[in-house]
């Protein structure tokens, strides 16, 4: 089923496109897989933001999560690379045209095991792109082994009990100076869509750790990677609302003093309505504290944990031309014959 063969519904967004223009191919993941609901919310977020699919590039590594970029945005370029190495491919690829928005999809195996190094170095560089971790605590494509985010003491059919401690992706992101760190839950589509929109509007690396239950190998009631556990233990930091730059900002739903707003680089505003916690998402130390607290209290904290909208990005560290690098004419790439003559002279020519 190709996107372009679909009949447009007439519900055009600000880019003049319909929801169908953002779809991908039919998913080949399991029925009920959390990753499928994430794909749907990516489609919804991009459509509602009016992003042009040609101005998005998708990147992924290896694993169930990394297969999903074919299931959304068929009109976007995509690159399904190697296990744990989505970050490096995305970094190189996005330098080709810095007006294109990067959308990386990885999994917990892809990011927290083999890809830990590249994940952390991408954060350290503040590469401007969205980095989604579809986190289910298990290796699906190899049919059910523990990943590095699986909790200690979990039982799997063949491997037995997990004796190692888990990696917390948000915590790792925070200590590596990531400029946007959020946690979502695939079973909470409304919040997820708003987190995705905020991530897509952030100028910098936006890390989105999404708990995404594996219905086939790891949907155990005692694990936070399951639907049931997630539904029962999820605590939202705030009721997140996303207001685009071009919209008139209204905060009528929010009582004064009970909301926190963060302006992103492009002028969009993320509004966070205070729930039971008084939380400041611009304070990295607070973010670490609340994650630590959630672990002790056995809860799943979701929401925007940390954002620094003005952090210097990787692209800010270069003096790049306005024209995309991959469109530069050969004449701009090869120095002149005169430059070579001077160079030869400078090399102690006799």
């Amino acid at each position, binding site marked *: 089923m190709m996107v*372009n063969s679909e009949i447009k519904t007439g519900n055009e967004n600000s880019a003049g496109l319909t929801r169908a223009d953002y779809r991908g191919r039919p998913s080949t993941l399991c029925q009920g897989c959390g990753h499928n609901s994430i794909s749907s919310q990516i489609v919804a977020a991009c459509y509602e933001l009016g992003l*042009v*699919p*040609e*101005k998005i*590039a*998708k*990147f992924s590594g290896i694993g169930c999560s990394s297969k999903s*970029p*074919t299931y959304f945005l*068929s*009109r*976007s*370029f*995509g*690159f*399904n*690379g*190697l296990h744990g*190495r989505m*970050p*490096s*491919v*995305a*970094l*190189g*690829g*996005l*330098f*080709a*045209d810095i*007006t*294109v928005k990067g959308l990386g999809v990885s999994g917990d195996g892809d990011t927290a095991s083999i890809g830990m*190094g*590249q994940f952390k*170095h991408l954060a350290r560089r503040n590469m401007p792109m969205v980095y989604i971790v579809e986190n289910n605590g298990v290796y699906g494509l190899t049919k059910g082994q523990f990943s590095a985010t699986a909790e200690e003491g979990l039982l799997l059919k063949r491997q037995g009990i997990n004796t190692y401690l888990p990696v917390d992706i948000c915590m790792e992101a925070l200590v590596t100076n990531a400029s946007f760190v959020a946690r979502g839950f695939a079973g909470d589509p409304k919040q997820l869509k708003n987190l995705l929109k905020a991530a897509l509007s952030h100028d910098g690396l936006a890390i989105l750790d999404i708990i995404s239950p594996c219905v086939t190998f790891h949907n155990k009631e005692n694990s936070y990677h399951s639907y049931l556990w997630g539904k029962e233990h999820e605590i939202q930091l705030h009721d997140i609302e996303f207001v685009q730059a071009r919209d008139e900002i209204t905060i009528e739903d929010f009582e004064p003093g009970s909301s926190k707003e963060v302006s992103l680089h492009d002028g969009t505003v993320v509004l966070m309505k205070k729930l039971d916690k008084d939380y400041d998402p611009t304070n990295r130390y607070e973010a670490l504290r609340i994650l630590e607290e959630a672990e002790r209290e056995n809860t799943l904290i979701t929401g925007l944990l940390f954002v620094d909208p003005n952090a210097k990005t990787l692209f800010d560290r*270069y*003096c*790049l*031309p*306005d024209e*995309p*690098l*991959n*469109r*530069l004419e*050969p004449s*701009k*790439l*090869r*120095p002149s*014959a005169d*430059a*070579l003559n001077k*160079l*030869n002279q400078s*090399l*102690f*020519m*006799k």
Partner: protein
Amino acid sequence: MAKNNPTKEVEIIKNNKIINDFCITFSTVNGSGSATANTTLMRTFFKMGIPVSGKNIFPSNIQGLPTWYTLRLSKHGYLARVQEDDIVIAMNPSTINKEIDYIVPGGALFYPDDIKIANTRGDIVYYPIPIRKIIKESEVTPSLKDYISNMVYVGILAQMLGIPLVIIQEALSFHFKNKEKPVNLNMDVIGKSAEWAKENLTKSDPYFVEPMQGNDDWIMSDGNTAGALGSIFGGVQFTAWYPITPASSLAESLHEYIPELRTDPVTGKETSVIVQAEDELAAIGMAIGAGWGGLRSMTSTSGPGLSLMTEFIGLAYYAEIPVVIWNVQRVGPSTGLPTRTAQGDITFVKFMGHGDTDNIMLFPGSVNECFEFGWKAFDIAERLQTPVVVMSDLDLGMNEWMTPKFNYPDQPIDRGKILWEEDLQKMLDKYQNEFGRYKDLDGDGIPYRTLVGNMHPKAAYFTRGTGHDEYASYTEDPEIWEESLSRIKRKFENGKQYLPKPMIKSNDSKSGIICVGSAAFPVEEAIDMLSKDHLYFDYMRIKSIPFHQEVIDFLHIHDRIYIVELNRDGQLAQLLTLAAPVESIKFRNVTKVDGLPLTAKWIANEIRKDEEK
């Protein structure tokens, strides 16, 4: 002191001067700052018109271990290493007794007079030098004393060999970028040392230098700098790298020259990006990402790094992504000898990657060719949409060489088959409104590619290392898999036309000698040596793999073929055997890997032994 000089026992035979044809080895301690002195002497000889080559034999260490630097002066123009030393400057007490053994009969030893040595050889000349005393008498600040003490031997040699001080000054001015203060400081020590030698040493050895006509329009550079500059003139737009000996200075040269050579004069913006990656896995990933995005993209590494990059290179081979990889070879396997040279990655690179793979290799045979292949590699990689590995080595890459000046590229930049919006629309109009990323429309095995940022709604495709059809869609279909791999093979077969052809010199001999890369220097000298024994050979230097038909023809028309290479197993011979199995009974492997560049004498001896059989 000179009065007690044991040189009195040695007679120079008058009229038997050796001019511009000898070898000087400087033995120092790593980190003692001898590089400036040694390079200055090399530049001086070069400016005098004397063909000269320098080889730095150094340990994997920052400070303290022995280091040797050898300068060969050759009026005949030979730049290869030689095994014996005519003159040794022995600054390292811990190795001096060994070095004495390497000096040819009639040779000379210069050494600090505070080193006690056993004068075991009566057939060499001993020149003790009071380095401490000379330094003490010069006006050098204490912190610079160790560093500048190397200039003492520069001054002594100037006097003893007949080097004009004014040319040394020119070389120093170049080194210190015309800064007067350090030049004067060094020249002061050099002048005083020369003066001391004049008054205190009796010339008792046969070695002299004289200015000669030569080296005009030649420059001095190392292969890594040349590779970087060639890449810049090839339009490199993206480099990701990770430090590794002996490749680091290639990327560092990019860092050094890109701001100057690739800043848009109008906008002030830089058209080439460099990222120092977290490791080689990321370096190649970034380079391949950029190559995919349509940037002329590269990385540089050596054996261990290349091992790490292998999985990604397999992906780029199958997903058909252009990228240039500089492999500055060192001795493997494993960490091996990180600071020693080899040609040991030939079979590895050929088949790098699991499954059926095939990689393009270019073998620069000189510093000048490092520049040439620097720009050519991008044209080949983009034309054929595949990784291209430039196979340099430590000897070529890290040593300073004299080399013909760099020539401006004689071909325009070839970006290969790229479709932007209008190109794509034209293609859709022509081919039933269909674009297939991996469709072989021209019958040459090379498909068309669109690049990220192309706004045409039909431009996008999904790149993957998994099985894919002509439209880049996932498939496990057996026939499609077979066809796509066959097409890539056809692409390589047809792609040979874009690769540099071998250099062949015929002597109408039935015997041939083959080599690649920097082995050419000793091989060409060995051929001249053998011709003096009336042993004549045809010669072929292969510049690229897969092999051109000319390579196979060369094998075919010769009865006996010597394949000279710096590895244990004869890797070039292995690949030639695969390419032309019936010819392989003629092959004679002349191989050696001890970490040092080959010498002509060794090669000639090996071949002579075989010819005499």
